[in-house]
């Protein structure tokens, strides 16, 4: 009897210890299984890296002394919307970069004086990119802004014409001089002709070559300052938080109710594919959904055109560009040009194009460098098949996603749509532009 009791007590003790261990194990397992977020730690970190809250403040641009001067941004905005910056007085930057279409134009290729060689990319968020254009042939916003102004298919004017516009429009002149100092006297037409630029067109080029080196330098400086003002404006164009960002916020807060209120199951599945099986984040990574790099993804050539060589030509071009980071026109005294200095070349850049931000996806089709694909669904189909590249080597591998999976991915991509973070007064022609142009028209004989 006594012994039996002793056995019972001993059993009970062992049972209790065992039970505690089991409860501990179950509690640990249970907690692990019902983590409020269904995402693993690694996946959550991936989501955080794509979240707009991970976008660092825009770094200063030492090559542009007025990059963050609001007066320069104001002047840049006026220039951006001014059609007088063209050969025929009817093309402004905003002709192709339309604010209501996230600064694109809805066409396969830009349409201005002529037809551009490639698709009009968005400007939103590009201040973060070390390279501009599809092939990265420019290494700063200000240097990029100069090219279309003299491209015969785009604005088709000359730097001499633009510089004279700044000198003769009293409002532009005042804004310019406040930023860059006194404007030189350009009234002598024998020194400063009406139209002159180092372009392919023989007459314009001859007029430019006839000018003295010193006068050409004077004009170049003012021309570059036009670019730097436009760049100051473009630095303000930033994407705003989307529904996707609200979802990630809810994941980071471990707020399950908010997660389900923000995303449908299909959108969550689409996001899972996006960061997983579909390999999208290999290039569309970081808070802007782009690595700002160049990839050949086997996009078919534009009908009746030879394949576009892309970055392999762009990298050569930027290294010899007269307005690149190493040029005398950069305001950076130490010429810190690591991007240019360490830029790579090589055969894998044949046919490679810059990864565009997916935050600018909505309403900006057709897509790809020549607008070859009309819709996001067509783009997803393209990556699903991943055919051989026409030139170079297609980095993408066939995804073999089902129709439903592609639909889920597309649904997820739609959640990236959001209004710009930029205040609306910057997203239209400045109010005083119209008034000034009307005044000019009135004063005309």
């Amino acid at each position, binding site marked *: 009897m006594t012994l039996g009791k002793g056995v019972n007590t001993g059993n009970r003790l062992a049972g209790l*210890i065992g039970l505690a261990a089991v409860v501990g194990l179950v509690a640990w397992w249970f907690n692990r299984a019902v983590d409020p977020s269904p995402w693993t730690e690694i996946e959550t970190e991936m989501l955080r890296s794509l979240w707009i809250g991970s976008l660092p403040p825009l770094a200063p641009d030492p090559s542009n002394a007025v990059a963050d001067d609001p007066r320069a941004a104001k002047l840049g905005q006026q220039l951006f919307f001014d059609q007088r910056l063209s050969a025929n007085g009817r093309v402004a930057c905003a002709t192709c970069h339309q604010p209501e279409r996230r600064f694109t134009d809805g066409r396969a290729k830009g349409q201005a004086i002529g037809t551009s060689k490639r698709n009009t990319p968005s400007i939103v968020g590009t201040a973060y990119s070390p390279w501009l254009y599809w092939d990265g042939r420019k290494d700063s916003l200000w240097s990029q802004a100069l090219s279309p102004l003299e491209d015969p298919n785009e604005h088709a004017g000359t730097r001499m014409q633009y510089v004279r516009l700044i000198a003769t429009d009293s409002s532009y002149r005042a804004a310019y001089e406040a930023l860059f100092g006194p404007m030189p006297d350009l009234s002598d037409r024998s020194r400063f002709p009406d139209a002159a630029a180092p372009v392919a067109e023989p007459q314009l080029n001859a007029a430019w070559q006839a000018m003295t080196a010193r006068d050409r330098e004077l004009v170049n400086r003012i021309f570059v300052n036009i670019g730097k003002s436009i760049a100051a404006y473009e630095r303000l164009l930033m994407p705003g938080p989307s529904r996707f960002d609200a979802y990630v916020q809810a994941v980071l807060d471990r707020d399950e109710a908010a997660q389900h209120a923000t995303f449908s199951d299909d959108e969550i599945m689409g996001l899972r594919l996006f960061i997983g099986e579909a390999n999208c984040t290999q290039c569309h990574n970081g808070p802007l959904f782009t690595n700002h790099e160049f990839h050949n993804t086997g996009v078919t050539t534009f009908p009746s055109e030879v394949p576009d060589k892309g970055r392999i030509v762009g990298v050569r071009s930027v290294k010899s560009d007269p307005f690149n980071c190493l040029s005398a026109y950069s305001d950076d005294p130490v010429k810190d040009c690591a991007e240019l200095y360490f830029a*790579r070349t090589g055969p894998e850049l044949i046919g490679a194009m810059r990864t565009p931000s997916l935050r600018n996806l909505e309403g900006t089709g057709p897509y790809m460098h020549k607008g070859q694909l009309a819709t996001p669904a067509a783009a997803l189909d393209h990556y699903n098949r991943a055919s051989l590249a026409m030139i170079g080597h297609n980095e993408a591998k066939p995804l073999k996603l089902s129709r439903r999976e592609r639909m889920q991915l597309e649904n997820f991509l739609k959640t990236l749509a959001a209004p710009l973070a930029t205040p609306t007064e910057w997203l239209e022609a400045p109010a005083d532009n119209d008034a000034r142009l009307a005044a000019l028209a009135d004063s005309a004989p």
Partner: protein
Amino acid sequence: MTNDMRSAGVCLRCRVFFRYTTVFVLVVALLAAAMAEENRAESADSRVWISQSGLFEVSYKSQQHPITINRMHSWVLHVETADGQPVANADITLLGGMPEHDHGLPTSPRMTQYLGNGEYLMEGIRFHMHGSWEITITISAGGDRDTVVILLEL
């Protein structure tokens, strides 16, 4: 009878105790293993990599901790001979790539400075994708030439 009962009772107690202790020990072991895994991940870049022909031992320190994608940064490579002597005046080239994707680094990093004591500054390194990277470093010093491949998971 009483003795039989007692021995049977002790045995039952033993079994129950043994069973729960085993579960407990297993849980502790699992947790310990998980923690050890974490520590290994943290000290990844202090590892010494031996070149293919065994001529050099190489370690690197990244300017970035942890290494994040899309940011240009530099590494300091430490190069020693197999018997632990720092290697001076070496020519060093660095190539990187992702074997899974058949592409290289987005930049052309270069050795820009010898810092003394077998240490070399490699500038212009940037990774633009998550995944498995192979960094191939070729070292030429005193007529010897050898290659080391550093594996990196981002």
